[in-house]
């Protein structure tokens, strides 16, 4: 049965797509190439333009500028119901007066698929989303996770080459969300459809995506694999938004950079930008033990202001000499946990010190 399932994906090419509401740029000119079959996540805070970009892809929002291609076909003038794109809405938007089977069969009915074929394909897709036997359930009888699966089935049963998902897990609780993340990836892998997934949850983006596009204030900040985004953020915004970070402003000093009158040893050379920041992940800052300075490490003097026990770790807040607060995360197995008010030396190894530019 499953042999019929793979629908394949199609490449998406966006050229200079832009959208303004009144005087405000909801999306600045954006160019993006999404290979066929990729799982791309649009990640950003609310108002970052991620939903606007998704709605332009779906056809519900008309871009002011730019071009959009699905494969070779230009689609930026096509109305949404002719784009043949599957879409999963934030609140699922299931038709509440129809059964599960009627919901899923709706796109097939519109395409004039025959009754028998319809039933076969509904059963097929229900088995893919692990909801065998749910055909005659009413929508109101479904749990959140089941409704999510039905929405996914309805958006893929007509074998679209592109699947758009608008924060589909935001209404679920944490446990179900973790489970559905794995499920959605599994279904993506089974169908091979090009998937654009919108979320504001950085953890979700890291876990699920082939690539992530991080947006802020209407502009794409960085596109890359989860690992690239986490370990090599290009801007202070990305570094701060993905995982907690200590972001320290730097001053350019010839070839190098300084923080609070101290030369900084860093992994990369400073990028070409006006505003420069040092990124130090809380788990990479170490309390220096006694007087033996590690080679190739930055050392900062600081005073401990607060210690929080968080179960699997301590979060230690410390004020640097110029007053800036940083957070240090250390394991509960640490030998010598400093006390509040204690003066400590913090070490950041050169390979953990990244220089990024300010937000564009």
């Amino acid at each position, binding site marked *: 049965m499953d042999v019929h399932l793979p629908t394949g994906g199609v490449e998406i090419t966006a050229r200079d797509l832009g959208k303004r509401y009144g005087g405000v740029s909801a999306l600045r000119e954006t160019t993006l190439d999404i290979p066929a079959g990729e799982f791309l996540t649009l990640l950003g805070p609310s108002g970052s333009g991620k939903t606007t970009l998704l709605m332009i892809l779906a056809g519900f929002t008309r871009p002011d500028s730019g071009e959009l291609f699905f494969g070779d076909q230009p689609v930026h003038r096509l109305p949404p119901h002719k784009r043949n794109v599957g879409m999963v809405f934030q609140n699922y938007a*299931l*038709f*509440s*007066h129809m059964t599960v089977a009627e919901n899923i069969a709706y796109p097939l009915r*519109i395409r004039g698929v025959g009754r028998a074929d319809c039933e076969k394909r509904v059963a097929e897709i229900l088995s893919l989303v692990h909801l065998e036997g749910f055909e005659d359930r009413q929508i109101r009888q479904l749990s959140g996770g089941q409704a999510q699966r039905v929405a996914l089935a309805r958006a893929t049963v007509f074998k679209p080459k592109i699947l758009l998902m608008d924060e589909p897990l935001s209404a679920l609780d944490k446990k179900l969300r973790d489970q559905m993340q794995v499920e959605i990836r599994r279904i993506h892998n089974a169908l091979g459809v090009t998937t654009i997934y919108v979320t504001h949850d950085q953890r979700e983006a890291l876990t699920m995506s082939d690539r992530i596009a991080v947006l802020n204030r209407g502009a794409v900040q960085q596109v890359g694999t989860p690992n690239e985004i986490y370990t090599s953020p290009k801007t202070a915004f990305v570094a701060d938004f993905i995982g907690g970070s200590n972001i320290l402003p730097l001053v350019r000093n010839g070839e190098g950079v300084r923080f609070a009158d101290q030369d900084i040893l860093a992994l990369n050379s400073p990028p070409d930008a006006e505003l420069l920041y040092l990124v130090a992940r809380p788990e990479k800052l170490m309390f220096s033990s006694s007087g033996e300075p590690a080679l190739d490490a930055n050392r900062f003097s600081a005073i401990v202001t607060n210690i929080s026990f968080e179960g699997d770790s301590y979060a230690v807040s410390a004020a640097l000499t110029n007053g800036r607060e940083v957070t240090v995360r250390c394991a509960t197995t640490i030998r010598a946990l400093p006390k509040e008010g204690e003066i400590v030396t913090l070490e950041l190894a050169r390979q953990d010190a990244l220089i990024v530019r300010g937000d564009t």
Partner: protein
Amino acid sequence: MHSSNNDRQISHGRRAWLYLWTAAVLAFLVAPSLIVIPMSFSASNLLEFPPSTLSGRWYASYFSSSEWMRATAISLSTALLTVLIATPVGFLAAYAVARTTPRLGSVATAIIVLPTILPHIVVAVGMFFVLSWAGLINTITGLTIGHVVVALPFVFVVMLSALKSYDFSQEKAAVSLGASQFRAVVDITLPQLKMSLVTAALLAFISSIDEVIISMLVSTGSASTLSRRMLVSLTDVIDPTIAAISTLFILVTVSVIVIVQLTGNRSALVPGGTER
């Protein structure tokens, strides 16, 4: 806001006076509305409460009077026409208001509910002048126009409130699945608003049957509606037939409301409801 926890902060002793107030208010409100029911079964020629002998003679008198029957026929046909016009027009107006910008929507809403905000007598006077001018006094057409103006705000308000709690993303979902905008409305929106449409139609019907003041002015003599004839009869002589007709009115109104409520509640259990 309201929760069972909140209740407990007022002790039962303190709540006693609230209960008393409420009971007094309720008795005061119910008495005049329902006193006609026992009166209508009186056998006496005079109004009696409580009736000394019971009989159904005033019901017989109503059903055997060709004048009352004629008035009833006029009321019913006007009400039916009113429903057929006010329901689709009111739905389309509400849909337009729900989908347009908030500013345009609130201007349109203000104008549509104007006849319910202005004194009814003023609307009736205006309607009388307009219909005189158009030569439609004492016609069912004229009466229907008057009643549509009165019924439309009810339909509009019911449909607008239904559309406001309706999840338009379902329409959007249908479009994303390949349906045209029109087909999405027909396939998805209308079936889900079924119950509200029925409610709106029944409200339009009742508001037309119940309307007296416009009828008073624009339908006289043999074109009188039932409610107009009741009012006129009462100001002339005291005729207990009125009590019988009032009781029938109550019966019909309450049945309609009960039916709407029951189907409304059932719609929470079976498909077709607007909740989700």
